[in-house]
Each structure stands twice: as C-alpha cells, then as structure tokens.
C-alpha cells in the first residue's frame, strides 16, 4: 500500500487545545471514571456565528435552530440560549429543557412525532409547531379552542418534492414525515378551516440526504408552496429547510481516499482484511466485482456545515428563472430557518475511555479493551470512521513495544510505526466492538492510557448509551479555558456566566 491507513480527526480549537492537556484529561477520568464525555460549550456559540455569517452574505434574515436531539447536554443548550440562536425540540423533555435553559418560546420550534403532553406544552407556551399534516393540524386547533389558547404559529412540514415537469425525475429517499407536496391543496384547505386557531408562518422540510441537488429541489418546491399560501391570502414569512449540512470529520482527504481504496481491495480479497471478520461496511465481492454500497458517513467532506448552506443558497432554481435560491428567498421577503444538529455541535466535544487490557489473539490480531461499551461512543453505529487520539498515562514520548513480533495487524497497512488494533468494549457480548476495523495508532496503547474519541458531540456521544449489564454510563462535564488553564464542572452545573463558567456569578 502507498501510505498509512490512519484516519486522523480534523481538530480545531478548543477541541485541539484540550487534547494537548493530557494531565487535565487523566485527572478528570481518575475522578469521574471511564467512560467520560466532555462538552465544549463556547464552541457552539462560535458555530452559530458561522451560520449567521452565511445569512449575512445572502442578506437573509431568519433563525438557526439547533436540532437538540444531536446532544442532550445541558451545558451546550444553556450556552446556546445565551446566543441569539433558536432550538428545535423533538420531545416533551427537550422542550422543558429548552425552556428551562432560558429559551423564550419565540426561539423554539417543536418538530417530529408529538405526544399529547408535548403538544400541550408547545401550544400553551406559544412555541412554533412544525406540523406533520392535516391530522396534527386539526388536533392542535382543537387543543387551542378547548383551552382558549392564543393561535399557534405553525410551519407546514412538506415532503416528496419532485422536479417540475422537465423530463428529469429526481428520486429522493422516502420520508416518514411531512405531507406530500402533491397533497398541498388539501392541507391548505385544512389551514383555512382552522385559521382561527393556527397561524401558518411558513413551510418546512427536512431531507435526510447529503445531496445538494435533492436539497435544492426541495427548497425550490418550498418556494412554490409558500406562493400557494400567499395565493390563499396568508402572509407566510419563513421557509424552514431543516438540517443535514454535515460535518467534516477527517484532517486529510487523501487519507480517506487511501483508506476506502484499501477497504475496497480488502473486500475483493486483493489485500489482507482491515476489519474484524472481514466486515465490508456494506460492500461485498461477487465474482471479482464489487457489489453493494459503502454504508459509511462520508467522513472527509470539504463542503460541510455553514459552507454547505452557503452552496445550497447559491444553487439556481430552474423553475424560477434560474435565479439562485438565496436570492429568491430574499426577493420574496422570506426569512430562512435552518435546523442544523451535527453541524452546530461540530468540534464541541469528545469521549474518553481508559485502556484496560491489551492482548493478542491466536490469529495475531491485537485487541485493546476499553472501559466503555460500543453504545457509549456510537461512531460505528453512525458509520463515522475516525481514529481515536492516544492520550498516554505518563505523558508523551516513545514507549517500548513490549510485545513486538505478534503484531499481525499492525505490520500491514499502517505504514511505518503504526500499530493496528481492534478496540473492544466492556460488555460480555461478541458484538461489543467499539471499532469493527483495525485502527492504526502511533504506538501500542498500554493499560492506564486514555483513548480520546474526538468530535463526538453530534449523535456519537451518548446518543445510544444504555445501562446494559449494569455498566456505568458516562458522566458528562463541560470544560472551558480561562486565563490559560482548563476549568470544568459537571454538565448539569454549567451556566454560561462567563468568565468563570458558572462557578461564581
């Protein structure tokens, strides 16, 4: 192979800085146990700034709503409440959390499947409700009338956008959510019937796709839907384009290309396996030809986050004179709402685990057992391939390779000095692999070292954490830099009272 198979994380401050403070990280894990999650609240405010800058570049007003489901951290939400951003909540608990963190109802959008309690609190407090369809609209209107509430501001969630008759059919992934645009007329009839109880502030959608083309098509469709609302005499203000702007996880695009090529060759059998049991991440070989689809997050994404939004707004809308979507939003006097989750908590946290044991199998694979379960850092579940950062117990420096010679994985593919290991979890289950692939570390880890999984705040932190087999669930702490040194407190203790992060008022 030409070159090493490391997948180094892309690191920016403050994440990059905290990883250079091993004593601080070890102290935290010594005190609070492994696994441990750290969130970096100041970074979420910086990320909001990047999205705001894109709004500014297109002269667009509107709001950036953080998709809360990406991380349940109190510190991140409280820090966000201190900015001018909004929040998108998808459960009763998230709504209570947002209200309690200081978000006023005008900065909250309630989306997703709603139970009666969630709907009640949303209507009672007057947050904007993204409604899935006619049924939800009727239920909401009944609630408003029965309890004599003020009319509820609603966004009509749409789906199933298709290109205007042009001979090109763009297929989109099927969505469980929203009302098909082909049924828009019926939905608008319902809005008219309930105009005493609901006020349509606009339309919304969310497409679970990395494709700009699909997203551009949906936004174009949303502009037409807004016009349909206007034709009925409503004065809608906002188009909510959802999220899915992505994160760039890796430092080096060439490394990603090299790795995926090696994976392809491993699946085809033309190089030794890179994965536990020859797992192919969705790829398989049939008669020498590669079949299936790579089920991985595109970990290196040059266009992600705010830059992705910028590119989306620059896309032309063929059915609207070919003018850019951002220009069309502006010209039509619409506000732009977005709901980034992963992208807004980019670089906002990390997950730490203690190395418990390092051993080699009979086949020569090296296993590193960590004091955490695969559910504590769901990188594999979300298809994000990114190497952990080794945080040595005794500070950096070359370590004697005590069992050199039985390193079957490390000797191949990692390049000079790289040591391939499989990371396993603490559950008594064959499937509890933290990585189904060999990760190549600069030296073999030793018991007592920490492995830091960087940039996990978006969906990969404690999204799936359970108390299976009565294993401990990670504590979460908020950390920030003050006067050149790192400070921390428990996540639930954090309030954004800078500069001292909640310790004094």
């Amino acid at each position: 192979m030409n070159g090493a198979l490391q997948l180094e994380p892309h690191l920016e401050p403050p994440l990059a800085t905290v990883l250079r403070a091993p004593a601080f990280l070890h102290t935290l894990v010594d005190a609070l146990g492994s696994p441990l999650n750290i969130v970096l609240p100041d970074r979420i405010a910086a990320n909001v700034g990047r999205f705001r800058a894109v709004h500014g570049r297109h002269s667009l007003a509107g709001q950036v709503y953080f998709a809360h489901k990406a991380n349940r951290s109190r510190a991140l939400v409280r820090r966000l409440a201190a900015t001018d951003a909004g929040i998108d909540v998808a459960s009763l608990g998230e709504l209570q959390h947002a209200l309690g963190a200081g978000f006023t109802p005008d900065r909250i959008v309630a989306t997703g499947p709603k139970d009666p309690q969630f709907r009640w609190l949303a209507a009672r407090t007057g947050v904007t409700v993204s409604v899935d369809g006619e049924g939800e609209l009727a239920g909401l209107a009944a609630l408003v009338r029965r309890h004599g509430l003020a009319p509820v501001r609603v966004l009509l969630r749409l789906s199933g956008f298709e290109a205007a008759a042009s001979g090109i059919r763009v297929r989109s992934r099927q969505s469980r959510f929203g009302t098909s645009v082909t049924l828009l007329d019926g939905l608008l009839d319902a809005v008219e019937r309930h105009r005493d109880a609901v006020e349509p502030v606009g339309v919304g959608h969310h497409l679970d796709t990395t494709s700009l083309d699909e997203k551009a098509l949906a936004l174009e469709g949303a502009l037409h839907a807004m016009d349909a609302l206007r034709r009925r005499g409503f004065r809608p203000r906002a188009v909510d384009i959802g999220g899915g702007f992505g994160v760039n996880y890796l430092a080096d695009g060439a490394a990603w290309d090299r790795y995926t090529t090696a994976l392809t060759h491993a699946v085809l059998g033309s190089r030794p396996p890179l994965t536990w049991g020859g797992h192919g991440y969705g790829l398989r070989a049939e008669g020498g030809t590669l079949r299936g689809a790579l089920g991985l997050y595109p970990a290196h994404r040059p266009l992600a986050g705010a830059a992705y939004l910028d590119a989306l707004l620059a896309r032309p809308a063929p059915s609207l004179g070919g003018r850019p979507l951002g220009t069309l939003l502006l010209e039509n006097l619409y506000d732009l709402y977005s709901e980034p989750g992963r992208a807004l908590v980019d670089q906002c946290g990390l997950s730490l685990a203690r190395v418990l044991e390092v051993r080699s199998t009979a086949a020569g694979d090296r296993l590193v057992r960590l004091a955490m379960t695969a559910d504590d850092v769901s990188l594999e579940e979300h298809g994000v391939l990114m190497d952990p950062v080794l945080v040595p117990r005794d500070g950096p420096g070359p370590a004697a390779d005590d069992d050199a010679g039985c390193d079957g994985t490390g000797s191949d593919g990692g390049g000079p000095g790289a040591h391939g290991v499989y990371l396993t979890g603490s559950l008594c289950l064959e499937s509890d692999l933290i990585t189904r692939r060999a990760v190549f570390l600069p030296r073999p880890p030793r018991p007592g070292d920490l492995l830091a999984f960087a940039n996990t705040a978006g969906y990969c932190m404690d999204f799936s954490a359970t108390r299976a087999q009565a294993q401990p669930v990670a504590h979460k702490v908020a950390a920030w830099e003050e006067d050149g040194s790192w400070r921390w407190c428990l996540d639930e203790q954090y309030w954004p009272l800078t500069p001292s992060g909640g310790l004094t008022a």
Partner: protein
Amino acid sequence: MRYDSITDAIGDTPLVRIDPAVHGLRHIDLYAKLEMLNPFGSVKDRAAWNMARPGLPDAVRRGATIVELSSGNTAKALAVIAGMHGLPFKSVTNRMRVPEIKELLLLLGAEIEELPGRSECLDPTDTEDPLTLFHQELTRPGRPSLHTDQYFNDLNTAAHAAGTGPEIIADLDGRAPDWFVACVGTAGSSTGVARALRAHDPAVRVVGLVGEKSDFIPGIRTLDEVHEVGLFDPATYDTIEAVAADDALDGMLTLIRRCGLLAGPTGGAAYHGAVRHLRPLDAESAGAAGADGRRRTAVFIVCDRVESYLGYVRERRPELLGRPPARNSVATLTDAEIRATTVIDTTDARKWIAAERPLVVDLRGPFAYAALHIDGSINIVDELFDELLRGGLPFSKRQPVLLACPVGEKSVRYAALLTRMGHPDVRSLAGGIIAWRDAGAPLVRD
C-alpha cells in the same frame, strides 16, 4: 459515401498522428483514435448500437422502453437509437453532473431519472442501495424494458474487439501499436481493443487511466469505482494510473489549440496520461529504437467532443471562457459614486411617489414580483436591467426613477450607474422591499 441508415456510419474512425513538436516524444509516434467522429459523437456509439441491436425487434414488438444506467454518452447514443425505432428511452443516473449533457438528452427525447443521494444520518441497517431498487423495478411485471446493461454486457466489449481494435491494426499497416492508452469508464473500449491488439501481438502494453478519487472527470471511473464494473478485469491492464481533472483539462487544451482535435476532457485525460506514461520510456528507447531500427507507436482514444463540457470548463477554469468587461457595468463603479447616490426611505418614497409619480422599477425576479410588489411598479429583473443599460439609458431623462430591490444593495448600485450615465433624478429605495414591508407600507398582488 452513401448509407441507408446513420447507424451504418458508426465506426471506421480516423487514426490521426499527433505532431511530435506538440508531445515532444522523439522515438515514439503517438496516434489519436478519433472516436469523437462517430455519428452521435462518441466512442459509446459502437457499444450502444451493438448492445441494443439484437434486442430491438423484440423491444419494438413489446413496446419496451430502453433503459440504461448512464449519465453521458451511452445515454446519448441510446436515446438516438431508441428514437429511430420509435421506442422510449430512460436513463437512470447517480446524478448527472454535466448540465449540457442533461439538456442534450432531454432534447433527444430521453427521460432522466436521478437516484437518491446518501443518507446524512446514516442507518447502517439500511442495506438497500439505489441500484438494487433499480434492478427490482426492471424485473417488475407489466413494464417491458430492454436493459442494455453497459457495465456488465459483453456486447459492449465485443463492439471494440471486432471494430475499434482491428481498425487500429489496419491503419498501422497491419501492426499492433507498442502501447495502447485508454480511460476506463465501462471498461468496454479498453478491454475490447486490448483483446484485439493482444490477439495480434501479445507484446502490446495496455495503460488504463482512472480519475483521482477526490476528483471528477466525466466518463471516467475512479480507482475504487472501476471495481463496480462487471467488465473490468485488472488483468487487462499492464498498469493503471490516475489522472487529475486539472491535467485532463490541460491535455484537452493541447488537443484543441495545438492539434485541431476538438476533444472533451476524457480525450484530454487520455492524451495527458499517454504522454506522461511514455516520456520516461521514450528516453530509454533511444537505444532500443536503434537496435531493431523501428520507431515505436502508441495509440490513445479520443472519446468525445468538447462542446458538451463548457459548463464543466466554466466551473473549473472560468478564465478560459473570460469575456471582455462590459460597457456601463456596475462592476466599474467607485465607492464614491455609490456613496453619492440618492437613497430615500419608505416614508419619503411614498410621499415622492404620490407627488411626482416616478417610475418605480422593481429589480427582483418575476416570481417574487408577481407574489407581492409596490402598486404601480414595473418589473425588470436585475440581469435584464444590466443588459439594457449596456446599450444606454432605457428611459427619458425627464422621467424620475425609483429603483427597488430586496434590501437596497443592488438598487443603489444601479442608481449610481444611471446617474453616471446622465440621468438627473434616480433614487434608490433604502432597505429595499423588505424595509418597505417592515414599515407597514402596502404591497399588492395583481
């Protein structure tokens, strides 16, 4: 030359020598096989016709739709062939990235279906890839189709084994070239030609070119993608090398500007890859050529023509399509000119409109204008207005003008330009239509 059908004109393409002064190889003659001169414009004409022909009578009888996974030249050729036989053609693609090809296909009567992109929030248990869905639909009863299956169909390779390859040998006076260089797309042309050449002379060296992974050259697969091609067999190639899009464009420019070959980026990639591969061999063969007294020859394929790729060029090398600066352009305004322009807020604008009836020009797009606008205003979208002004003042100097755009940024620039052009009373609406709305001033929908 007289033919009964245009399909009879497929093949027998010229082999043209590249001037050594251009490529700089001293002991190797480099030839271009001009597949771009096939009647529908590309090397794919051969494969498309060879794959479709056997199934056509039956397809016509059943009223079947010809279906192919293609975002380019195969779709183009099949669309024409389908049209000639009164059949519909549907091209299914993983995103067509070259807009001109898309438009051309629509013009040819094709139906285009684009497959969905990747999920942003990955569900690893979701194993259904878009291609599986495509194949399931093909076999669904009641929708007759003729799937030409270019990535797996041996008739693709056979078209070149029987046509392209033997033509090259014939044009080289019965000899196979020493090197054959081709970009790998479906692998049909490279595999077929290699088969014919090797049968004639096993010593032929075959160079396969793929795109660099993070890059995109239309019609070429990347190092990983070639493994998804059923026709691809690594043993066909003595070496596989990657070409960057930038190099492909450089190669294309050389062919166009210095060789008179109006090749597209794929041809450019083949030329660049050929010269890059041959240059060190040329230096070595100084002695070899002397030994057996024979010059060496190399052949590369020029797949298609440049015209369809102007958008691709514009995106990557806009300077190649540069235009001279236009007269009366907002781009030439100085900050001082813009600062000196009269802007008025909504309150004053309403008074002025009531008192002097200025012409109110709304510079937004027609869609936005139709939805809501200032009563009595006219709509000239900015890009059209821009063009109008290049010709001179479009209205009388005695007619006062109020310009409006969404936030007042564009209108102030055009007001400054009109002022420079000699208009005595043109004003810009401060804060634009948004400020107008926010001030509670009326907007109408006619």
